[in-house]
Structure formats: structure tokens, C-alpha cells
């Protein structure tokens, strides 16, 4: 990599500290630099470790849903869905069909909002100021719909164990169809602005390459793994809720560089929008909550359920001792595992690439530190 220097130079340790515009929150990277070239990266996390898992052990099952909202605070509904599926699997409850459709529609909308935010923040990491504004405009539109359905912009607490809190408002169908049209235009606008932009291609093609084998060994999941060519999507390989009834395409990349990871997420937005319209066609009237006691009291046992979050494969391992509080609840946060892959990708690149690679992994610190 670096030619051996005649005179011995000391490598500079640059600290991209907890407060840095490019580190998406409180994540600290210590780069060992030889001039502009990055020799090694040592990530430091824990600046947002709020002890959620310990808190879960002292709260009843209904209350734990709110803690899951605040873990991956950009894909809230997907987190709620992950936990509620684990509790339902443990209590072997069948959720009514209409509740499943509502859950999948809201989860896919949340995925589109999360990817729109990713495209925006990734562009601002590379210096383009405008896509982040378009990304947040789409996010605002989707959040307005969430507010109409669940009552809150971000921390919804809408998906409950056994179904959803209440039925959707009457104008839900036409309103979501109109929303899909607007959001598709917004994302196409960002697509036209960024995807084949010469400077953007120069900054992302061939940067942060990771091949499939190292990606799997390091534990990458979700769009980051699909960018390297492994076609593993929990919605396809381990279908849950009503995903088997939907037809869609799972986009995969081949070279595993930053542009592939970006392009996989961009295509996933379009796929999610088409999924939502299919769900709207298939949805019928029916109950939205299964008949069960208010305080969930699952039987003594253990269960491991994983589902597809925008950032990757979120797993929930629930150990219950029969009381109304989980005995041990372990979350497999996709951002935490994707971060392990940061060091092998960044060695040998430039400082500007280190920022681009960290952005392409799309990490959320609330989930990394729990």
C-alpha cells in the first residue's frame, strides 16, 4: 500500500470524535493516518449506551415496545414489529389478517422513509447539500401519514402484541395511494440528481469494497450484504407476516462497493412502494387485534425471531420465565454488526473515503449502543 519511506515518519492519529458531522451521531473513529491515507480504523462506541436490555428486564411486555421504538429511531415501526413477532411466536398467537396487512404497509413505508433519510445523509457526507432536503421532504410526507394512523411522528407504539392498537382511518387506502405517487416522484428526483452524477460516481465506485465471504464472516446483513452479492433477505428466505403473498424483486449488487450499497437501497425503495400498493389491493375488513388478556404473560421458554429492518437483520432472543416481565431479552442490532465490517473496508483508503464508507453502512447509534 504505502511505499516504504526512506526516513521514518510517525503515523498521525486523527480522532473523528463523538461530535463530528459525518459520524451520524455519537460514534468515534480513531484513524491512523499516513498523510491522507488511512492505515487503520479503531471505532469507539458506547456514547449512547442507555442500558435498554437491562431496562427491558424490569418492564412488562407492553412497555418494552416503547423501548424498541427508541433503539433504531429511524425505523421505529420495524423495531416494534420485530419485538411483537417474538412475543407472539412465544405465546403462539395468530395475528388476524387485516392487522398483518396494516403492519406490513406501515413497516414498508417506514423502510422507504429510512432509505430516503439514508440517501440524504449519505449525499451530505459527500458534500451535496440538496438531496438531504428532498429526502427529508419525502420523510415528512410519510410522517404525516404515520401521524394520522398512529398519532405520533416517530415513537408510534402502534404495533402491539397480538395485532395493532386500533384500525386505520377510513380514508387510509386512497391516502396511501396518493402518498405512494408523491414519494415515488421524490425518490426519482433524488435518483436523477445523484445516481449517475460524475463526481458522485467518482467518490463511490470502487470505494470500500468488501467481498461476500468476509461480509458473511464479519456479520454484515441487509442491504450492505446484498451489495456484495449475497441474495439473503429475511422477507424472502424466512417469510413472515404476509410477505409470501407479495411478489417483488430483491435487488443485489456485485462489487460490494459504496455505490452498490447505495443502489441496492435505492431499488429497495421502489420495491417497497410496489409492495404497499399490492397490500392495499389484497387488504379486506376484519378484526385488528386477537382476543387475549391485556397483560401478556407468555409461557416459560425461549424463542429467537429475526425480521428484515432497513439496516439489516434484526433478531430478538426472548427468554421468558412465565412472569409478565421478560427474564432476558437480547437484540441483534444490524448496525452493531455492520460496524464490525468498517475496519476491513476502510484500511488503505483516504480520509474522504472513510467518511463515505461509514455513511454507506447507514448505522444508527441508538441501535449500535442500545
Amino acid at each position: 500500500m504505502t511505499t516504504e519511506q526512506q526516513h521514518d515518519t510517525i503515523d498521525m492519529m486523527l480522532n473523528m470524535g463523538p461530535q463530528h458531522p459525518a459520524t451520524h451521531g455519537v460514534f468515534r473513529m480513531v484513524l491512523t493516518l499516513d498523510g491522507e491515507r488511512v492505515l487503520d480504523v479503531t471505532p469507539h462506541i458506547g456514547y449512547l449506551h442507555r442500558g435498554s436490555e437491562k431496562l427491558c428486564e424490569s418492564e412488562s411486555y407492553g412497555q418494552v415496545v416503547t423501548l424498541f421504538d427508541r433503539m433504531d429511531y429511524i425505523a421505529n415501526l420495524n423495531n416494534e414489529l420485530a419485538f411483537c413477532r417474538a412475543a407472539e411466536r412465544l405465546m403462539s398467537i395468530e395475528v388476524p389478517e387485516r392487522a398483518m396487512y396494516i403492519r406490513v404497509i406501515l413497516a414498508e413505508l417506514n423502510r422507504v422513509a429510512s432509505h430516503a433519510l439514508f440517501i440524504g445523509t449519505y449525499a451530505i457526507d459527500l458534500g451535496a447539500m440538496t438531496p438531504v432536503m428532498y429526502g427529508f421532504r419525502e420523510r415528512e410526507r410519510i410522517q404525516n401519514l404515520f401521524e394520522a394512523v398512529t398519532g405520533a411522528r416517530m415513537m408510534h407504539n402502534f404495533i402491539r402484541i397480538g395485532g395493532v392498537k386500533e384500525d386505520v382511518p377510513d380514508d387510509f387506502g386512497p391516502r396511501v395511494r396518493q402518498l405512494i405517487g408523491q414519494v415515488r416522484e421524490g425518490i426519482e428526483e433524488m435518483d436523477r440528481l445523484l445516481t449517475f452524477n460524475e463526481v458522485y460516481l467518482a467518490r463511490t465506485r470502487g470505494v470500500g469494497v468488501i467481498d461476500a465471504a468476509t461480509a458473511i464472516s464479519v456479520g454484515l446483513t441487509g442491504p450492505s450484504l446484498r451489495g456484495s452479492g449475497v441474495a439473503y433477505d429475511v422477507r424472502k428466505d424466512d417469510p413472515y407476516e404476509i410477505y409470501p403473498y407479495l411478489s417483488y424483486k430483491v435487488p443485489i449488487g456485485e462489487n460490494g462497493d459504496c455505490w452498490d450499497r447505495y443502489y441496492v437501497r435505492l431499488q429497495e425503495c421502489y420495491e417497497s412502494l410496489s409492495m404497499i400498493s399490492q397490500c392495499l389491493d389484497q387488504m379486506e375488513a376484519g378484526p385488528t387485534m386477537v382476543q387475549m388478556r391485556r397483560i401478556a404473560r407468555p409461557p416459560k421458554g425461549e424463542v429467537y425471531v429475526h425480521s428484515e429492518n432497513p439496516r439489516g437483520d434484526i433478531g430478538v432472543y426472548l427468554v421468558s420465565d412465565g412472569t409478565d416481565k421478560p427474564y432476558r431479552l437480547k437484540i441483534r442490532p444490524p448496525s452493531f454488526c455492520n460496524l464490525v465490517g468498517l475496519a476491513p473496508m476502510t484500511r488503505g483508503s483516504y480520509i474522504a473515503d472513510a467518511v463515505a464508507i461509514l455513511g454507506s453502512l447507514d448505522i444508527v447509534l441508538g441501535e449500535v449502543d442500545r
Partner: protein
Amino acid sequence: MDVVWASLWLFTLLNVVAVAALSLVWLERKLLGRMQGRVGPTRVGPFGLLQPIADGIKLLMKEDIAPGSSSRVLFFVAPLLVFVPSYMVWITIPFGRDLFVRNLDLGLFFFVALSVLGIVGLVLAGWSSNSKYAILGGFRSAAQLVSYEIPIIMTILVVAMLAGSLSFRDVVLAQDVVPYAAVQPLAFGVFLLAGLAEVGRTPFDIYHAESEVVGGPFVEYSGAHWAIFFLAEYINTFMVGALGALLFLGGWRWPVGDVPAAAGVALFLFKTYAIVAVIFWVRATYPRMRIDQLMSFGWKVLIPLSFAAFVATAFQMFYGWPIWTLTILSLVILVPPIYIQLRWQRKPAMALAKHYAEIAVAVHAQPRPVPVAAVTEADAAPGREDDA
């Protein structure tokens, strides 16, 4: 006696330049706002016009910290080293036929000599504030600005050859028939790109890139000293606009010929603000280039192109071909690099995107079980089905 006149003229020049820079600050925030679907400052005075003044007052009234471990004298001198050259250049720039402080007949040479001095201030600021980010920013600015001086000098030489003189006034007077942008589009393009890099605007703003080196050499400055840097940067942007208007778009004369001074100045300002608006427009769309790409673009693309423009002009003047042959010659030189750029970068990416669309894994919907009216246990919960 003329010392009093000169100081009076210099004082008015300072005010004109400061007002122009403040108008640029306001224009940038409003223009970028418009392009990003938002409104920009509206609360501070009508249409947010007092926003730059509010920023100025706040910055002047702020505590001016010099970090303990920094070399105090150099720390406070660096902003002056950046501001003074960018302000002194305005002495020779004519706003109208005889609206200038001094009409040096070596005006272009004076500009080129002074625009290099700004780099010393940046590197000094980077080194003296004793922070790793500042040092990185300082070295980046040194590398970038030096390597973009050569294309600017070559394009200015092209204009000097065409006009036959180095004074701004003669250059503008020589363009009464056709502006040099039409004669030499290649030189105009290279000048704008190199001007962007010279001033450090996106896509070349690597030395004070927010997301990498957090403000580069200006990291440790606060309050009044930082305001001087901020002002100098906007004065430089205004200068690139003014020079583009004077050298290539015919300043205050081109389409209308000799007009009263006020209309001339208005025309000149219109052209300058047009170029500055293009600079802000580029800032809103393009991401930032990496430092090695920036260097290779400067040395491998801009410098050969500027030399080609220089040689093309020399051929045309030596053989006395008519003026329009130069336009064709420079267009012929300009087209291949753009084609190569598209050929090697955009097309393969589009092909790759098409390829990804084909290899995407298609998942086909399984037939839904007949929806039973009431939801009973009989309805097989899809969650349980296993065969993928």
C-alpha cells in the same frame, strides 16, 4: 495631497467590496434555499435582507478565542494575510469606463501575483492554530490552490493575447465586437472551473470540507477573526464573477457599446451576479471531489486544456485566420474530454444499473388461502409456512 484622495478611494472601495460580499452571503442563502425547496432567511428584515448584517454584528461581538497552545501572533495575523490580497486586487478592477482606483496597465499581472498570496494566509492559519484538522486543512488548501494557479494564468494569457494588452480597460474595450467567451469557449470553461477551485467552492471545497476536516484552517477561529476569513472567501467568489464578466463577457460594454456609466455598471454587475449564481447553483448540485481526484483533474485535464487553448490562439494569431476559426478550434479541443468523461464514467455505471435490474432475485407471490369471513385458527398463519 493625493495620499488623502487615495485613502478616500480605498475606503470607498472597501465599503463597496464589503457590501458586495454581504449581498453575496444573502444571495447564497436565498438561492440555495430556493433550490432546496425552502425559503431561506425571511424573519430578519424584509426578505431577510438584514440577515448578513445580523450575522456580522453577532460575529463582531463574539468572544475571540485564541487556543492556549497556538502561536498567538501568527494566529491573529493569518486572517489579515488572507483578507488583504483578496481586497487589494479590487484596486485595478474597473466597474465602468473610468470607475476604478488605479488603471494599471499591468492589471492582469497584478491580479495573478496577488491571488497567490491568499494561500500563505490559509497555510499559516492551519499551522498556527495547532489542531490536527487545521493542519490537514492547511496542507490541502496549499496543494489545491497552487495546482489551480496554472490554468488560471494560462487562460488569462489567452485573453491578454487576444486583447493585446494586460490592462483590464483595454481588454474590455477590445471586446466590443464579440466577447471572448464566444471566441474562446474553452478558455472560458477552464477559467470558471479553475476559478471555482481557486476560491474553494464545491465541488472543489476540500480544504474546508465540513464532513471531513470540519472547517479546515478556520476550525479554531471564532468571532471577529473568523468573520474576516468568511468575508475574504465571499470577496474571492465575487472576484471570480467579476473577472469572468470582464475578461470573457465584455464587462460594461459588450452588447450595448458606450452607455452612460450607471447603465454600464448595472450591466457589469448583472453579468457578475449571473456567474456567481452559476457558482452557487453548482454548489447545490455537486458533491465534493476527493483530494487525489481533484489533483489529477487539475494536472491531467485542466492544465493540458489551458495549454491547448493557448496554442490554438497562437496558431490563429500567427497565421491570421479569421476569428471564428478560433471558436471552432477551441470547441474541437473541448469536445473530446467531455466525451471521454461520459464514455468512461457514466455509461458503464448505467450499464451496471441495467445489469443489476436483471440479476435481481424475483419473489413470486404464493396464492392466498381463501379468506374465511371470521378469522379462526383454521386460517393457516402465514408466519408458520416454511418452504421458501
